[in-house]
């Protein structure tokens, strides 16, 4: 709707005040611009949409192999393995 002091106080004359839909005259006035506006909307919407999908695809390729695992000694590893086995047995019962 047209912005401005007047529009903020009075509802637009170009809306049906019962159904709040555009009047036929409003639709006719916008008709010459409809397809061009639609194309502009499509182009503008395509920019964030393509950025989103590009990011999604790019991040999906990462297997996180480059993240370093902190060093651990052989003894600690045996201990952890044993704990893990024990837990599994308990669950198995």
């Amino acid at each position, binding site marked *: 709707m047209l912005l*401005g*002091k007047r529009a903020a106080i009075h509802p637009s*004359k*170009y809306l*049906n005040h019962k*159904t709040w839909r555009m*009047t036929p*005259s409003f639709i006719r*006035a916008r008709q*010459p611009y409809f397809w061009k506006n639609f194309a502009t909307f499509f182009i503008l919407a395509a920019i964030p949409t393509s950025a989103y999908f590009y990011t999604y695809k790019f991040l999906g390729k990462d297997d996180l192999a480059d993240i370093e695992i902190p060093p651990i000694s052989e003894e600690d590893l045996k201990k952890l393995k044993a704990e893990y086995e024990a837990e599994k047995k308990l669950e198995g019962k």
Partner: protein
Amino acid sequence: MAACFASAVRFANNIVRNNPQVRNIASFFRNALGLDPPASPDDPTTENRFHPWDSSPSAELRTRAATIKANAKCPVSHKDIQYTCPISGIPTHHSKEDWENDLEYHQSKRYELLKKVNIYEHDLRSGRPFPEFEFPEEQESDMLVNFLNWDTFFYTRLFYSMDTEFNLAAATKILSYPITIASVLHEYSPYFLKPKGPLTLEGLKSIAALRYTLYPDETSTFRDRPLRIFVLGARAESQLPAHIWKQLSYLFPYVPLELHFVGPECLFDPEKNLYIQSDTPVVKRVDEDFALVHHTNFFHVYHKSQDFLPYDPYLDVFFLFHPGLGAPETNGQWDETIKGLLESKCAIFTTGYNEFDTNRDINWLLSNYNKDLDILFEKTNNIFGSTKWELNDSNPHELYQFNQQLFGFRGKRYHAIKK
């Protein structure tokens, strides 16, 4: 099955109509679903505005039907007119056989336009409220006016929403005069330079001079008088109320404008029902930026007595609404006026009722003044012409619209040439 369904609908409609509580519930659901409310029986439609003119509820239209029957001739048998076309409701032919035999009438579908004449005239006399005549005032400076067509103009100026052809016919007929002037002079004019539009290079020179005055900036030189818009041979347009002409001034804010009506029929006294003749110009000042001035004699009289001097292409422009320059009725009357107009070197714009009328005017101009004039504006359909169809009472087959065609010319200017 269909009949059964139809009777069920009729039964339901009866309940809704007769029971106020049910009616409220029905309208609540209709609103909740966003459906259109049922049309009021007073709203104009083609059906409820159609009456044959000779049995019309309006006495005025019955008289017009009688005038057609008395004066017009049937195009087929060239006898007097007695038969009323059942499609358009307007007396058009001598008899039913003539009507059936008039192939041109049926092929050109002229009855559709005649029917529009009929329903628009009945709508104006229907006594319904006319909210389309509530006009907006000042345009907010951050809202541009779009001159692409009537719809965009009405919307950007925030007129009443002209939804039906009846609204448009009523409003455009009177607004056509001021808005036609504005659409030519305005910086966002819909008429472009050739080949994209009808404006010639000479036309652009004239219009640029006028726009220099209409859109002043800090480099513009001081103007010592308002821009004068002359309306020559003014008839109906001079009787329009001042607030309708003020619509022109709203489109050029802060620019002082004067509208000069010139012609013996430009000042009408409705109480005495006669045209007033006055030796001095009659001025009606609307506000400090806008005034209407009536000069009740022919232009060439004032031109010879040098009343309008000095002419300035930056500050003067002429508009001739349906002058009928080449029409047989005005034979020779325009001769001296056109000479004066061409001497002034100011832009002149004319309109015509239909293509035939305008072609006749242009042919007359070119055959008499070809050497002395430059075309500013090729003949084109006026975007801001009236959408209401009219018919000629002495020949109902001649249909026209006010300000349908637009054309512009100017006296040739001779520049100094370096040899």
